[in-house]
């Protein structure tokens, strides 16, 4: 059934386009304009500041810390909220900071990533954004074995740690970087997620409501 449909659809398309079955010589892909990011000047040293400003416009709390201050910040952040369990990405950087051990030592439970209902029951998910986009205030998360998608999605609070050097200026720059990484097909993750602010809806009389499906709160810690 499907094989026939495939041939039939391709045949209809070629007929519609007035082409032979083999597909004729391609006219070239439209040439790139000089620079796609028209007017997007590099922000230079101010990137983190621009990122901060963008985030504050989209209901997101921003914090700053030096590398040495991250552990203290995260512990305080969690204590303040009184949650009993959490889920966290297992990246090299987060492990080097010893966040998971320290929180477990403090009597909190970690929900394993395989356990969706478990993650759903936790109060907070902690991730490390692979990239951030200053211009839009977006976090970019690439899925991987230690980096499950549910952690930034299922708990009611998402805390993302962003290393200052991973902040890019705009979407054009980001896609340039991703294109470089994804050149080899094996390097493409199952899911690349852009997150800009907390989950929102305006489906009831255009009233803005946060936390409809994803986290109600998004907190970003910039580490310099």
């Amino acid at each position, binding site marked *: *059934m*499907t094989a026939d*449909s*495939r041939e*039939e*659809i*391709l045949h*209809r*398309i*070629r007929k*519609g*386009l007035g*082409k032979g079955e083999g*597909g004729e010589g*391609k*006219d070239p*892909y*439209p040439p790139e*304009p000089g620079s*796609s990011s028209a*007017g*997007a000047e590099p922000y230079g040293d101010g990137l983190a500041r621009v990122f901060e400003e963008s985030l504050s416009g989209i209901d997101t709390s921003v914090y700053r810390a030096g590398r040495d201050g991250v552990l203290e910040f995260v512990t305080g952040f969690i204590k303040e909220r009184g949650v009993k369990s959490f889920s966290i990405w297992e990246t090299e950087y987060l492990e080097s900071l010893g966040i998971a051990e320290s929180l477990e030592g403090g009597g909190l439970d970690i929900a394993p*990533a395989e356990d*969706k209902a478990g993650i759903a029951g936790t109060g907070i998910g902690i991730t490390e954004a692979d990239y951030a986009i200053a*211009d*839009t205030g977006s976090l970019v998360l690439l*899925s*991987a*074995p230690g980096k499950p*998608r*549910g952690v930034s*999605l299922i708990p009611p609070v998402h805390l993302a740690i962003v290393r200052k050097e991973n902040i890019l200026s705009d979407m*054009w720059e*980001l896609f*340039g970087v*991703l294109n470089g990484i*994804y050149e080899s*097909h094996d390097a*493409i*993750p*199952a*899911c*690349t*997620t*852009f997150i*800009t*602010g*907390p*989950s929102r*809806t305006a*489906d*009831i*009389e*255009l*009233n803005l*409501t946060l*936390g*409809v*499906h*994803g986290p109600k709160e998004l907190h970003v810690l910039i580490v310099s």
Partner: protein
Amino acid sequence: MNFERDSARAVGDKKLQSALINVTDRFRAARKRASDETPGWDDLRGRAREIKKHTIAHLDEYLLELERNVRKAGGRVHWARDAEEARNIIIDIARRNGVKSVVKSKSMATEEIGLNDGLEAAGIRAVETDLGEYIIQLAGEHPSHIIAPAIHKTRHDISELFAEKLGVPYMSEPQELTKVARERLRGEFLGAGMGVSGANFGVAETGTIVIVENEGNARLTTTVPPIHVALMGIEKLLPRFGDLSLFLPLLVRSATGQKTSTYISLITGPRRDADKDGPREFHLVLLDNGRSGILADRETRESLYCIRCGACLNNCPVYRKVGGHSYGWVYSGPIGTIINPQLMGIDRAPELPFASSLCGACRDVCPVKIDFPKVLLELRSKVVTRKEKTGQAAAIMEALSFRFWRAVVTHRRIYELALRLSRHAQRPWKRGGVLRSLPYPFSRWTDERDFPAVSETPFRERWRKIDRKGGPR
């Protein structure tokens, strides 16, 4: 479908009228601001159009490239000629895996194929998870706007609906209502055997499908259940991964006026072996359902460039009065007037190309610069030619009237005589410069609007006087 009847009903519905103005004004203002703030907006639209034009001209090649790359990433690709085949493919996947319940994220393509009814008929529960779509599904209705499907419902309507269908107490705060939906739908996500989504874009180069949203329900739909099926119209293709850096901002800014949406998911195949979450199976269903037929007409082919942002709806003076349900099918507003007749067959929607004032506001905001007035005129001419060929009385009458009109206006003396006669003939109906109600067949016009009366002293005569006095030349 019956555009005349349904639009008349919509215009008389006060609640709907205020909801329509409210939502379209909000989206229009937001789009305007976002596009003004984007440097080189018009050039970006031009470039997007070029890329779409190129993609559609090579649709077969790019579809094959997409198929190859989805497979390389471990996904499966299915081709569906029409709605029935698409439904059967999806039902089959569900049956093979013993799926009893399906969660869905918002997708116009699944509306187009009537997937929910198909699944229910096959004994599989389908639950819409976008808040607006969830409300519509509970009410047993259809979406009235591409981006905001439940805008025609007030919080009061929704409170009553939830109380009746979900057995919760009456509550009128949107926050409370949203919380009820969140809790109900969480259970659905965790229990579903399969998630079905649409796709805003499919990237040939990488085999990636892209979903843009604000709520997070599409992320849950494509992450939590063990199987993910995406249904995509064959025209939603982009050649290169990097094209997204152009198309994503264009789509979101045109749709809601946000700089970017809350969530964007770029999905390439199922979860990798060592990944700890994400679906174990990924299926992409490529839907033709009349799209390939649009290719053959070079004049209307650009209808396939559409990226479904909804900006044309919000800016259309007709949509803003008649709302989404008058268009009789899933797509409404200007985009509905051009693609419904082409996808359904022009005989099944002959009224739609006429549901436009040809003002061109849609063309001016379209992120891929679709020339709506041109396409509409082309379709109108097809409708009229067809009617004349089949000898429909009204069509013949109309053709004769226009021939008569041409004879009058192209002969000066006949024209002047006709004007003079009309000036006298109109007197019994003239009220303050307009004709309010005329006898048949002219009542076809005056039933719905006034007709301007012929002036007592035409400009031509006034000009003669000015000219004699040596006035301005």
